[in-house]
């Protein structure tokens, strides 16, 4: 029994980095509780006092676990308030919640990370985990798409990752989103993915992006012969409690906060089509 499951712990913003004009990554240091432990893929509820809570994935891996990171886009009241805060100010955190990516099962396999827009934030932790344990995994492909060049996140890190052995970084923008200087791909993510010609053998594909991208990516993967068990995604739904009680994040009997957010395409197929 959780004595006060809704009372967050306090964290101080110790660094911030603007990814785009409306996306920011925060580094948060715990103020007074015992060090957190979490797994890649888990999420937390972040409090802006006076405004409310929002759910974000924990963006850094446990291999870099002396603090917490989150990447968020300013969308509503809470995220606008969070973006108004500056280094040194205090926010609340409760979590970690949910299940995690099966990073141990992926050892020796070739991995393809496909992130669309803000979906890249949810892949950041497992990707960094894999790169921090580089020798345990096979080839890594990172396909990152966004609407336009100005919407690309983790730009500096992408450059760093591209220089790691057997890591290929492919960056793409939607048609019309390119600039004259753009040297990446132009096209929708599923098209670029198919162009890369990936083979299903010994591969795991980790996909996260808006529902419409996920829909078409799953179709592409099916066409290319990937088995649903090889495809892992992480879901997001509006949620309030993160404890399986408030009743709004479910897809059929599957509660994203409690049973997810990480799910294979095989498991997703068994759920009602309500993503």
């Amino acid at each position, binding site marked *: 029994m959780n004595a006060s499951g809704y009372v967050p712990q306090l964290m101080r913003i110790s660094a911030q980095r603007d990814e785009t004009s409306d996306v920011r990554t925060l580094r948060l240091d715990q103020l007074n509780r015992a060090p957190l432990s979490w797994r890649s893929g888990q999420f937390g509820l972040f409090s802006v006092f006076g*405004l409310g809570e929002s759910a974000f994935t924990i963006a850094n891996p446990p291999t870099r676990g002396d603090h917490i990171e989150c990447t968020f886009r300013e969308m509503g009241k809470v995220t606008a308030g969070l973006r108004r805060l500056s280094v040194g100010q205090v926010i609340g955190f409760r979590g970690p919640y949910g299940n995690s990516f099966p990073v141990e099962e992926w050892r020796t396999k070739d991995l393809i990370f496909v992130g669309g827009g803000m979906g890249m934030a949810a892949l950041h932790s497992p990707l960094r985990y894999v790169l921090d344990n580089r020798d345990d995994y096979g080839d890594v492909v990172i396909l990152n798409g966004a609407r336009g060049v100005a919407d690309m996140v983790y730009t500096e890190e992408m450059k760093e990752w591209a220089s790691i052995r057997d890591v290929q970084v492919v960056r793409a923008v939607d048609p019309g989103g390119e600039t004259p200087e753009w040297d990446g791909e132009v096209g929708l993510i599923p098209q670029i993915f198919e162009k890369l010609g990936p083979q299903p053998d010994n591969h795991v594909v980790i996909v996260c992006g808006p529902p419409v991208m996920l829909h078409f990516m799953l179709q592409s993967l099916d066409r290319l012969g990937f088995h649903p068990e090889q495809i892992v995604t992480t879901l997001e739904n509006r949620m*309030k409690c993160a404890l399986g009680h408030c009743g709004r994040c479910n897809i059929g009997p599957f509660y994203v906060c409690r049973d997810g957010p990480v799910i294979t395409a095989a498991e997703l197929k068994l759920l009602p089509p309500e993503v």
Partner: protein
Amino acid sequence: MTASWRLSAAEVKEWLDSLLAAGRRVIAPAGDGGLMLFRQVSSAGEVRLEDTAHARWSPKEFLFPRTETLMSYTFDHSSVQLAPPQPAATEQVLLGVRPCDAAGLTRLDDVFLGGEEGDQLYADRRLRTTVVSLACAAARPECFCTAVGGAPDGTEGSDAQLVPLPAPQGYLLRALTPKGRELVGGPEPGWPAATEQDWEQARTQAQRVAAEIGRSPLTGDLPGRLMDAFELPIWSTLAERCLGCGICAYVCPSCSCFDISDQASAYCGTRCRSWDTCTLTGFTRHASGHNPRPDQPSRYRQRVMHKFAYFPLESDGRLMCVGCGRCVALCPAGMDIRSAVETTATEVPS
């Protein structure tokens, strides 16, 4: 057989007054007949236990308040002070609860006490609550407990039960749990023991009321059939009249969904949870504007599926509907969840 006694109407009142005198908070149906509600009473005279006494709303708010504080806080630019809520310490008795409503409370238990993360606020309140149900001596048109596993004299969720006998015979009172036994005053409360004939009369009455309700149990693999019906077009027809007002959830004894929101000024605030419902438009709308349940049919489907498919799938087949019928009686558009379930389940090609 459980310990049971026979009490005159006057003795029931004396018993209630003794509970009040002992400092218990007693919550019972009260009101002037026009609008009967569960509320805290200060004398037994206020309590309405006659056949026609049906509270407009269920008593769930005394375990799961409409709005409650999850924490308070003060904050400025660089520091925050948190104040967790103080759990209520009062022993309370919910009395005159119809068997359907008592069963509804056990569904709230499943939600708030089941699983890995129990809810401490709910658990504290639940621990301090004793439920005395009141068996039904008459049916109302909207009643359907018999279709969903209940009965006019059902005891699920009851610590003790009052069974009204035809006037002027008074009531039978049975203690069903240690808590109920304590409430009636231990093993020898001083009333005459109920006889086998008394209980025979009570059983006959319950059978008569069940026949009046006239709804046979929903049988077969209901969750399975509803899951198969998820994509059928019938939902559009069923939900055509739904206004998305949410009254069905607010009067429901088992609906447990809630919202969490902050009420704050510049330097202090309160985080509250408040009842919420899946039939409201914004319930599942993402910050991006995407809504996985974008229209009223998908939201109404969620309501039906949660109660008759998703919840039973993880609760050994128990439905999250106890057949009180309030949603049927109070829907401004005349929606009827009974026919929605029956229609959908029979639409599935077998």
